[in-house]
């Protein structure tokens, strides 16, 4: 197996420096911090600029993080996402017996891009193009946990209490998000609608950036075991579908 690619390690270090400095940096500062010759560092920042990941201030010639970092997470056309995810979303619904949702950051909400009915013959209404609350749904919390740059910070959200289980304080929401990051999966145990459960995993495009959340929805008792953890069979299918769709998002 080949070792780490040096130029990518250095590019990542440049981004970390620019992100952590709290102010724009000069080329000389970057070169000093990385202990590299200036021409080498210039090549790296020039490449990152061409990718939109770094910007250079015209007047001062100082470097800072670029707007491309934000559009990396939201730049996918939502209908391209649906087209790529659709077959796997059907497989997921068929395998789990759950409804399937695909959600993307939409301002201060989770925008539903795709919805597959629960395959049980019950009357259901298509929720495509509706907004769900970020703090009270599995897919919303998944976006908050895994796409923090393209979603508002928890303290900036209106944490409306939909049910007794809704994370209606910043501390509670932060705890939910930490658990989601640990588990790699966000859950909703009746927090938006009493008795309605959900679980969601991030869909990652090239570079591992989260661009959407893939979720399954079913009654709480169908999705969760006694300990409040998602049932392994359904969680495994959700993770597998998430991996497969993510693999289709690596290239545009």
């Amino acid at each position, binding site marked *: 197996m080949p070792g780490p690619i040096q130029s990518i390690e250095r590019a990542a270090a440049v981004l970390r420096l620019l992100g952590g400095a709290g102010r724009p940096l000069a080329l000389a500062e970057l070169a000093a911090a990385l202990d590299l010759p200036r021409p080498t560092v210039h090549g790296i920042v020039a490449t990152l600029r061409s990718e939109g990941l770094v910007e250079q201030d015209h007047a001062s010639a100082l470097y800072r993080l670029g707007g491309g970092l934000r559009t990396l997470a939201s730049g996918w056309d939502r209908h391209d996402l649906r087209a790529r995810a659709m077959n796997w979303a059907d497989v997921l619904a068929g395998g789990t017996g759950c409804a399937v949702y695909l959600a993307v950051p939409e301002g201060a909400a989770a925008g539903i891009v795709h919805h597959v*009915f629960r395959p049980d013959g019950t009357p259901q209404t298509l929720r495509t193009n509706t907004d769900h609350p970020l703090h009270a749904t599995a897919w919303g919390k998944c976006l908050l946990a895994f796409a923090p740059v393209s979603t508002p910070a928890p303290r900036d959200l209106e944490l409306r209490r939909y049910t007794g289980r809704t994370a209606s304080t910043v501390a509670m929401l932060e705890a939910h998000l930490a658990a989601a990051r640990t588990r790699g999966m966000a859950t909703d145990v009746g927090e938006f609608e009493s008795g309605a459960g959900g679980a969601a995993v991030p869909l990652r495009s090239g570079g591992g950036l989260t661009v959407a959340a893939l979720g399954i929805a079913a009654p709480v008792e169908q999705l969760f075991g006694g300990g409040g953890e998602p049932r392994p069979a359904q969680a495994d299918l959700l993770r597998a579908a998430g991996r497969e769709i993510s693999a289709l998002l690596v290239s545009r």
Partner: protein
Amino acid sequence: MTTPVSGDGRSGDYRHSQVVAAIDQGTTSTRCLLFSRTGRMLAVAQREHRQHYPEPGRVEHDAEEIWRNVARVVPEALKRAGLGPENIAALGIANQRETTVIWNRHTGVPLARAITWQDTRTGPIVAELVEAGLTDLYSRTSGFTPATYFAGPRLRWLLDHVPGAREGAEAGDVLFGTMESWLIWRLTGGVHVTDVSNASRTMMMDLRTLEWSPKLLEALDVPERMLPEIRSNAEVYGVCTEVLPGVPVAGALGDQQAALVGQTCFAPGEVKCTYGTGAFLLKNTGPRIAGSAQGLIPTVGYLIGDEPVYALEGSIAVTGSLVQWFRDSLGMIGTAAQIETLAMTVPDNGGCYVVPAFSGLYAPHWQATARGVIVGLTGYITRGHLARAVLEATAWQTREVVEAMNAESGIPVTRLKVDGGMTADHLLMQYVADVLDVPVERPLGSEAVSLGAAYVAGLAVGHWSDLEVLRANWHRAALWRPDMPAEVRDRERANWGRAVDRSYDWVV
């Protein structure tokens, strides 16, 4: 290229029971799909084949290449699912219809490349039949008037132009088949059969007796001994000697009829529409052979058991291909899916209409000299309005075919089952529901064609007991309810009609 679409093995229900394999031999690729007893797709493998364009209007496939692809995708699909031939209860085939191949009975080698359904070289042969006053005979017997669309004239062309073809056919050395015939013959090591749905697209079969018509064969000057035996859609034609040794080949359907079965449209009046580059609507007409008025084509739906079920077919030439044109020729969008994003930038079409009569208008107009028009342009119109108009053209063309189907019989269409790539476009599906004023439904799993092939094969070997079991496998994945005020629908319908009028008589 192969694409795994299998679920996680641990949750699968197929390790301890058998599955059914389907080969979908399509226009651009050949695929193998495996289905569980509940109709879930477990794995798929796919390979594309080359399109040969020797001259304008001619499109050919190498039947040998397609056979090689079959021999590769079937083991690939099995491998993905972790299964062997012993796990396969039966194999079914769905195929591009009307594509015509002839081969040597002794060597198995095709005498020429297959002539595909898009190929229009048989124009002069068809014109001859019409000039000879045979239109009525064809209409009465095969169900439709002579057209370049069907396989029979292609066979005649091959007999006339390929060295040794006619002599070989008369001597019994050269065989004819559409793609399912060719594949069954190769798979079984020499069983020469076709199925009623494919045979009904040859212009050589009697739609009532479901047998080759001696009169039609005589008119086309085709030796009967080169033709395959016509069989039902669900029966064991033979057992594989290659690719899946020991597995019965137990079902075959033309692709559009396969989608009718896959969508479980088993009751008279039920309609499915498959949206691809073009669109195909098939309506189950039960035991009744529909009239061919308004350019719709009566055809065999399927024969499972003894009683044939007929269908009325309406085809739309340009649907998805209009979106491709919008993307590739106009450069308005980067991907087909992005047309929905662009269309959603505006609330309506702004008074703009696109009539995609790129090679004339098909059903129900049949205007060969019509050409495409964009009307209603003003300074107000943006790319978003054009995107709307492009999508709406598919919906209005669907409505025209449904209107013709409703006019043909007393049973109006009350809901539409859809499948195919364009069902990913929710804005379009909502608009189809709006202009038809009926609910539009998409089933779970977009593989209606392959599923239909699996269903007939599984029925033949008793893997599934009856059609009701298959109906229970159909699950609604999405439903679009009509949500357009009647006055808006009527106004837009009238505008579309006026736009279509303006496309007439352009070519002089």
